[in-house]
């Protein structure tokens, strides 16, 4: 039962969509979080509080708002993205980006504030300084990445709303589980749930290994 092509396709789509969304969130969240943590400018705490609130955005609400934007009757309807995997990527990026940003900011703020001065004093370039700070904070930064990924691989509300759970096109593991449950096919739903859990475990195992590399404990 596990090896039928439809399940492969659903699993592959889940991974592609959530990995891409997490990747984009990292691209947004890492620089933004770093700047929020290290920068000193007016409105910094206000921005930080917005980001932290964003971490608690309900995925179904994000899905609803993005769907309303992408419907033909909505402002971005001409892009024809509704009910496509890219729409799910967009919604999931909006969900994961605040998580990655907020946790990155917290990770870098926890560093010794004199560290950056020391690095510059030792002759580090600006690039080297930021790079070294990231390396110093790699434990909580990888945790931020895992949290961002976790927040999207497991969500169903946004995927349902903007994707439509269309067979062969936008059905992902979480929405497939909801469908099988509503049809009363509980065994299939449980099997898909187990598959999802194993997948997320393997990914987080790999990331944890990277995170813990070099730790002596």
């Amino acid at each position: 039962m596990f090896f039928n092509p439809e399940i492969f396709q659903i699993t592959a789509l889940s991974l592609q969509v959530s990995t891409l969304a997490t990747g984009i969130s990292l691209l947004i969240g890492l620089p933004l979080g770093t700047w929020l943590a290290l920068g000193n400018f007016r409105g910094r705490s206000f921005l930080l509080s917005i980001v932290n609130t964003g971490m608690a955005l309900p995925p179904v609400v994000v899905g609803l708002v993005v769907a309303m934007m992408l419907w033909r009757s909505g402002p971005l309807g001409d892009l024809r993205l509704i009910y496509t995997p890219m729409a799910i990527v967009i919604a999931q990026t909006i969900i994961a980006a605040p998580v990655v940003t907020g946790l990155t900011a917290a990770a870098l703020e926890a560093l010794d504030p004199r560290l950056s001065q020391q690095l510059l004093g030792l002759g580090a370039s600006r690039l080297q300084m930021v790079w070294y700070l990231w390396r110093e904070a790699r434990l909580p930064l990888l945790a931020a990445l895992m949290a961002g990924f976790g927040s999207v691989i497991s969500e169903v509300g946004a995927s349902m709303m903007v994707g439509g759970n269309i067979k062969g096109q936008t059905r992902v593991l979480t929405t497939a589980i909801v469908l099988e449950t509503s049809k009363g096919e509980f065994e299939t739903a449980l099997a898909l749930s187990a598959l999802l859990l194993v997948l997320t475990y393997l990914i987080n195992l790999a990331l944890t290994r990277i995170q813990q590399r070099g730790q002596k404990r």
Partner: protein
Amino acid sequence: MSKENSLFVDGIIACMQRIFSIFVLFASVITACTGLESSAPASSNLILATTTSTQDSGLLDVLIPLFEAESGYTVQTVAVGSGQAMKMGEDGNADVLLVHAPEAEEEFMAKGFGKDRALVMHNDFVVVGPASDPAGIAGMAAVDAWKRIAASGAVFISRGDDSGTHKKEMNLWKQAALDPKGQAWYFESGQGMGATLTIASEKGAYTLTDRATYLAARDHLQLEILVEGDETLLNVYHVITVNPEKWEKVNYEGALAFLRFLIAPSTQEIIGQFGVDRFGQPLFFPDANKTDEDLGL
């Protein structure tokens, strides 16, 4: 900005520039692996808004691939209730509707939101409940059964989602001159037919369902058919194309092709055979050769 701030910003920008090129490579690999990057092309894509009963029974899983192979269109089937499907049609967010709420559909057509409307098939609704039948409704007419359920306070699960099934249920309450809302024994699931049946089964409650979804789900339910065959329980499906004069972005050609497909004799025959091998009886009865009046509408 202070000198320290600008140092940080420069450093961040420098690091991100290096990361960005790696990311672009990685993202293009992912999107190249599937059609992730493609948005739906206008003319070959069709959004079908339909009921949960046509999807949960499995009929669309048979019909849609046939239509796609024959016509070359890609159908995006969104299974919502009839109420939401018609709202999507009103807002131009769907191209074609397959729904089963005749009164609401007539209003939809009267307001000019739909262009073509064709009778496709029918089956019937049945009232299901626990085998023990606490309210004693077995064999009654539907409206009488509603009165008996209200009088005995037996638990009833409603779809509560403005779907075709929900509208039929509310119509029966109206005929019985009763208002169940807010009563202690009346619950609204707000979900599709499959999920609602599961709730009714778990709670040992009564509910109204179309025969097709019930048969498809029967194996995991502890519910029996208690009321059937009543002429008020007729369940008629129509296909409606959304009016391109109201919304120029709808794919009218595709919608019309789908309508013609559904009423074509070969498709009608497939509809008539659907479910016979699994359930010993057809789940839907093809009607394209009849009119609404023939069915008593």
